[in-house]
C-alpha cells in the first residue's frame, strides 16, 4: 500500500524551519512572565573545599535582590541518574572550580550577577586531584568519602577510593585468544575533553502557580528527566511539577540530565516569583559538562590472512567531580571497544575515576568515540602490517545480521559491508591524490556501529474534529528534526499529509513518558510507539467506516488525505472522510478516537556468551546501525595543520523517514567529529579550566568544513521495527576522528595516537619521524 506510506521517504521542510529562519522561535531564554526575576549563580573558586558557612546578608541588602539560595534551601535528596552523588547546589563541599554554590534572584540580570558575588561563603580549601593518576594514587584525597553509602543502580567498586566504576567483559577465551594470532599490534591512545558547544547555553524559566504547582520551561533533552530530578532533588511530588520544553538550541548529550532547573525552581520558590536563569557561555563551559578525556590501551591480534582473533582493551576515563552518566558511558564504551567485527576472543576493562574537574557525561557517541578512535586507528595499523587494504580487512571481518555483539545480543540487520563498499566506490579509494607543494594528501577509513533503541517511549494519537490528528510523545526536538520525522511516521500510518498532523509541545502534563532525546533513539524507539498509536487510531477509524459504509472492516482501505474507502470501489459514495468519522465518534457513537502506543527496549544480554562484571544492564540498549566513512585530508608539512578535503559518509538508516534530515545529521555530526579530531580540547592547569570561551576553545566553522561531506544514506530495513527504521544521529561523529587519523597516516606515514591532532602535535611528529 504505497499510498498510505507516502509521508515517509520525503524531505518536507522542518516544521519549525520557518520560525527559526525568521528568528521567531521561542527558546527558554526568550520567555518572559509578569513579575519575572532573573537568576545568577555563584560558583566555587576552589577545586575542592569544605563549605564552612554562608552569609547572604550583603547580597540580600542590595537593592533589587529578592532571594538567595544555597544548599540550605535544598528540600530533597541527592540526585544523579546512576549514583546519587550530587545536589542542586554544592552541599558540604565543593568539588570543582565552577560548581554552583549559591544563586540569587533579582530584578535584573545585572543586579543578580552583581549580588551573586556579594554572597559570602567561607571555605576550607582541601587538597584536590587533577588527573586520573593523582586520583588513584595511594592516599589520594577523596572526593566522596561516603561513596559506599550512596544509592546506586550499578555494581560499583568497594573501597575503591576515587574509583567510581570498574567494568569488565570477557568473550571467548579473552586474552588467551592471542595465541591464535600471527600478528599482534598494541598501542596506547589518548583522547581530549570535548565541550558540547550547543548554540544555546543552559537556560530555564520556573514559575509557581498559586496552587503550589511549578511549571518549568527549559532547554533540555528530556522533560521527564527534569521532572524526575526536581522530584528527587527537591522533594516535590510529581503532581506538583510540570516540565515543558521550549525550542532547544542543541544538546548533544549536555542537556540529557538536569542542568539549571533545580536552582531556578529553588529561587522561584523562595522569591515567590517566576525566575529565569540563563547561563553565560563561560558559566556554561565551567559549570556544565564535557566528553570524557582518557587513555586507552588497545591490543588486537589477527591471523596472517587478516582474520581478527583477539582484542584487549584497558581504558581509563576521567569522570570529573560527580558521576552523572559516567558509569553508563563507560559501559557503552566497553560495549563498542570490540569494534563492529567478529572478533571471537575479547577482554575489555574500563575505569571511570572521580577528579576535581567538571562533570564528564553524555556526549554524542557516549563513550563510543573514544573506543572507536583507538580501535579503528589500530585496525589500520594492523592492515598495514598485514599488507591488506584497510577497507578489505574491515569487510572481511565485518559483523553481519545474525552475528552476536559483545554482551550476546544478536544483530538483526547490518549494512556494514555495504557501507564500506559504498565509501570505497564513492571516494575512488585507490586513486592517488595529488597534493599542492609543501603538503601531503591521503585517504583514511573507519567503520562504525552505534545503538538506536533505548529504554521506553510512549505516544498518543488523537483524532480531531476536522479529521486531522495530533501526536503527543513528549520527545524533545533539540534541533535534529524529530518533530518532523515523527509527524511523518504518524501521517504515513494514516495516509495523511504531514500538514494534517500536529505535533504536541513536549509537556509532562499531557505527554506519555519518554526517556529523552539521547542514544540516537527517537526515530526507532519513539517511532515505534507513534506507529503503534497511529495504527490503533486506524483500527478505530475502520470500525466506524465499516458501520458507516455498511461493509466488513477487511474490505476497507485508507485513501490519501484522510479518507477510508471500500477496496475496489473508488467512487466517492463508497468512502467516508476522517472528519465524518470524527463527527460520528464525538457526537453519536463511540466517543473520541484516541490511540496509544507503548514501547520498551528489551534485549537481554547473555551471560553465557559474555561474562561481565561491574557494568550496567545494557539489555535496555539495543539495535545497532552501521556505517563507514572515508576522509581525504591534506597535511601542511610546514605547520602540521590538517585540513579535511572531502568526506564520504555512508550510514544505514534502515529506512529513511526524512532523507534531508538524515543528510543534515551526517553533515553536522561529521563536522563535530572533525572538531574532536583536530581542534577541540578543553585544557586545565591543575584543576582550573584555562579555555572556557569560544575565543580560546575552537571548533570548526563553515570555513573548516570540507566543501563536500557526501552523505550516502543506505536503507537496509530493520526487521525489529514496524517501519524498518534506524537512527544515525551519532555514528558520523564516532567515525570521524579515526578516519581522519587514518588519513593523516596515509598522507604522512605517521601513526598518531592522541587527539586532537593539533598542528603542533602533527609537526612535532613529522619532525621526529624525519
Amino acid at each position: 500500500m504505497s499510498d498510505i506510506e507516502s509521508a515517509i521517504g520525503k524531505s518536507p521542510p522542518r516544521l519549525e524551519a520557518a520560525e527559526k529562519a525568521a528568528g521567531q522561535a521561542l527558546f527558554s531564554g526568550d520567555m518572559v512572565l509578569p513579575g519575572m526575576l532573573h537568576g545568577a549563580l555563584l560558583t566555587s573558586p576552589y577545586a575542592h573545599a569544605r563549605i564552612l558557612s554562608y552569609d547572604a546578608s550583603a547580597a540580600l541588602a542590595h537593592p533589587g535582590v529578592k532571594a538567595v539560595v544555597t544548599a540550605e534551601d535544598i528540600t530533597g535528596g541527592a540526585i544523579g541518574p546512576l549514583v546519587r552523588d550530587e545536589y542542586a547546589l554544592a552541599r558540604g563541599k565543593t568539588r570543582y572550580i565552577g560548581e554552583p554554590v549559591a544563586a540569587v534572584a533579582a530584578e535584573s540580570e545585572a543586579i543578580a550577577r552583581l549580588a551573586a558575588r556579594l554572597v559570602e561563603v567561607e571555605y576550607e580549601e582541601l587538597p584536590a586531584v587533577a588527573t586520573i593518576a593523582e586520583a588513584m594514587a595511594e592516599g589520594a584525597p577523596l572526593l566522596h568519602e561516603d561513596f559506599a553509602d550512596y544509592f546506586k543502580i550499578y555494581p560499583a567498586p568497594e573501597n575503591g577510593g576515587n574509583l567510581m566504576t570498574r567494568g569488565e567483559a570477557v568473550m571467548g577465551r579473552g586474552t588467551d585468544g592471542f595465541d591464535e594470532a600471527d600478528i599482534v599490534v598494541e598501542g596506547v591512545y589518548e583522547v581530549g575533553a570535548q565541550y558540547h558547544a550547543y548554540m544555546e547555553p543552559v537556560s530555564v524559566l520556573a514559575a509557581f502557580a498559586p496552587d503550589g504547582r511549578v511549571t518549568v520551561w527549559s532547554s533540555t533533552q528530556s522533560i521527564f528527566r527534569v521532572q524526575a530530578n526536581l522530584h528527587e532533588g527537591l522533594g516535590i511530588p510529581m503532581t506538583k511539577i510540570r516540565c515543558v520544553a521550549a525550542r532547544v538550541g542543541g544538546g548533544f548529550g549536555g542537556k540529557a540530565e538536569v542542568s539549571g532547573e533545580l536552582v531556578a525552581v529553588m529561587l522561584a520558590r523562595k522569591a515567590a516569583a517566576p525566575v529565569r536563569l540563563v547561563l553565560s557561555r563561560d558559566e556554561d563551559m565551567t559549570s556544565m559538562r564535557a566528553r570524557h578525556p582518557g587513555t586507552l590501551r588497545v591490543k588486537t591480534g589477527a591471523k596472517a590472512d587478516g582474520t581478527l582473533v583477539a582484542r584487549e582493551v584497558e581504558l581509563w576515563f576521567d569522570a570529573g567531580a560527580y558521576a552523572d552518566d559516567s558509569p553508563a558511558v563507560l559501559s557503552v564504551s566497553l560495549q563498542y571497544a570490540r569494534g563492529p567485527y567478529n572478533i571471537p576472543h575479547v577482554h575489555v576493562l574500563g575505569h571511570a575515576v572521580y577528579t576535581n574537574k567538571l562533570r564528564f557525561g553524555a556526549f554524542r557517541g557516549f563513550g563510543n568515540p573514544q573506543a572507536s578512535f583507538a580501535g579503528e586507528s589500530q585496525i589500520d595499523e594492523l592492515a598495514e602490517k598485514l599488507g591488506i587494504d584497510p577497507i578489505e580487512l574491515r569487510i572481511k571481518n565485518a559483523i553481519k545480521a545474525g552475528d552476536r555483539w559483545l554482551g550476546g545480543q544478536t544483530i538483526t540487520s547490518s549494512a556494514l559491508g555495504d557501507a564500506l563498499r559504498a565509501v570505497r566506490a564513492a571516494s575512488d579509494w585507490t586513486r592517488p591524490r595529488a597534493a599542492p607543494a609543501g603538503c601531503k594528501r591521503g585517504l583514511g577509513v573507519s567503520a562504525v556501529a552505534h545503538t538506536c533503541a533505548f529504554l521506553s517511549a510512549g505516544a498518543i494519537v488523537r483524532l480531531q474534529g476536522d479529521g486531522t490528528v495530533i501526536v503527543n510523545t513528549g520527545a524533545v526536538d533539540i534541533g535534529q528534526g524529530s518533530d518532523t520525522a515523527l509527524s511523518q511516521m504518524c501521517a504515513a500510518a494514516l495516509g495523511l499529509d504531514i500538514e494534517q498532523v500536529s505535533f504536541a509541545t513536549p509537556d509532562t502534563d499531557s505527554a506519555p513518558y519518554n526517556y529523552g532525546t539521547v542514544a540516537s533513539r527517537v526515530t526507532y524507539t519513539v517511532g515505534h510507539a507513534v506507529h503503534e498509536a497511529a495504527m490503533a487510531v486506524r483500527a478505530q477509524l475502520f470500525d466506524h467506516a465499516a458501520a458507516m459504509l455498511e461493509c466488513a472492516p477487511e474490505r476497507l482501505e485508507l485513501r490519501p488525505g484522510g479518507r477510508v474507502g471500500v477496496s475496489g470501489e473508488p467512487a466517492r459514495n463508497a468512502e467516508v472522510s476522517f472528519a465524518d468519522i470524527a463527527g460520528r465518534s464525538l457526537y453519536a457513537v463511540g466517543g473520541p478516537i484516541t490511540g496509544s502506543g507503548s514501547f520498551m527496549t528489551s534485549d537481554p544480554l547473555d551471560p553465557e556468551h559474555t561474562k561481565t562484571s561491574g557494568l550496567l544492564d545494557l539489555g535496555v540498549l539495543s539495535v545497532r546501525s552501521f556505517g563507514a566513512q572515508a576522509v581525504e585530508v591534506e597535511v601542511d608539512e610546514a605547520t602540521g595543520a590538517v585540513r579535511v578535503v572531502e568526506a564520504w559518509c555512508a550510514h544505514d538508516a534502515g529506512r529513511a523517514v526524512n532523507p534531508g534530515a538524515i543528510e543534515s545529521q551526517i553533515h553536522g555530526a561529521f563536522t563535530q567529529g572533525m572538531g574532536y579530531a583536530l581542534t577541540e580540547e578543553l585544557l586545565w592547569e591543575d584543576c582550573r579550566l584555562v579555555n572556557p570561551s569560544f575565543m580560546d576553545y575552537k571548533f570548526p566553522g563553515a570555513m573548516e568544513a570540507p566543501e563536500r561531506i557526501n552523505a550516502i544514506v543506505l536503507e537496509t530495513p530493520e526487521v525489529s521495527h514496524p517501519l524498518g527504521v534506524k537512527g544515525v544521529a551519532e555514528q558520523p561523529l564516532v567515525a570521524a576522528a579515526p578516519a581522519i587519523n587514518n588519513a593523516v597516516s596515509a598522507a604522512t606515514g605517521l601513526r598518531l595516537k592522541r587527539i586532537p591532532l593539533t598542528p603542533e602535535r602533527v609537526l612535532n611528529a613529522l619532525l621526529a619521524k624525519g
Partner: protein
Amino acid sequence: MDFYQPTSLDAALALLAADPEALPLAGGATLVAMMNADLVEPSALVSLRDVAELQTIEAAADGGFRIGAMISHAALADEARLGGGNEVVRQAAARIAHPQVRNIGTLGGAVAHGDPSSDLPAALVAADAAIEIAGPAARRVVAAENFFEDYLTTALKPGEMVSAITLPVQPEGAVGHYEKFARVHGGYATLSVAVVLAMAGGECSHVRVALGAAGATPVRVDAAEARLLGSVLDADAVRDAAAILAEASDPIDDVRGSAEYRLMLVPRLLGRALAAAEGGA
C-alpha cells in the same frame, strides 16, 4: 555609566578630558567584550560613531593614505586603492575574525588596544605606518613601530586617542603580503608574518617584515631585513633572517600554541610570506 555621542573630535576629547575614567568607544568589538567580562569598568563611554572626521580614507598627493580611526575592518579590507606594499594592511584587515566582527571593529580601536595577537599591528609596522594621536593638548604622530610599547600597552597617554593611520608611499614595485596561521579561520593568530617586499633584477631591493603573536609587540629587526636585502631570497638568506627574528621573539605558551611551536613557525611562515610576496612582485 554615562554615554555620550559627540559629533566632533574636539568634543569627544573634551568629554574624555573631563572624566579620566571615561573611555572612547569605537566599534566596541573588543571594548564591549571586555566590559562584559568585567575586565574594564569605564565610568562613561564616549561614542565616536558620529564623529565624521574619523570616517574617511584620503589618498595623499604623494600616493600614501590617511585612514580615519573609525574605518571598519570590513571597509579597510574592501579598499581597492590599498595595493602594492600597502596591500599588507588590506590583507590583514580581511583576516580579522569573522564578517560580523569586521563590520563593527575599527582600525583605530584595534590599534589602540595593542593586542600583539591581533592582525593589524604587525601589518602596520611592516607597512611603516604612522599613528596619528589626538589629545586634549595637541595632535602628534608616532611611527607604528614605536607606538606598540608592550602587551596591551601603547604610546597613548590618558585622554588621548587614535585619530588616523597614515600609510606611506611604498617603494616602486613593492608587494605586501600578510601570512596568518591560526587554529581555525577567524581565530587569533598563533603566529603571523607581515611583509612588504620589492624585487629588482631578481634581488630584494626593499623589505620590511614584522611578526605578530611573537612577543608583547610586533617583532621587527633591522638585521633580519639587512640579511634579505640584496639577496635572491635564497633558502640561506631566509633561514638566517628567520633566525634573527626568532632570536628577537619572545612568544608565550597559550591555547593557540606553545612558545616553542611559535618559534618553529617563524622560518616556515616567513618563507611562505616572502614567496607569496615575491610571486606577486
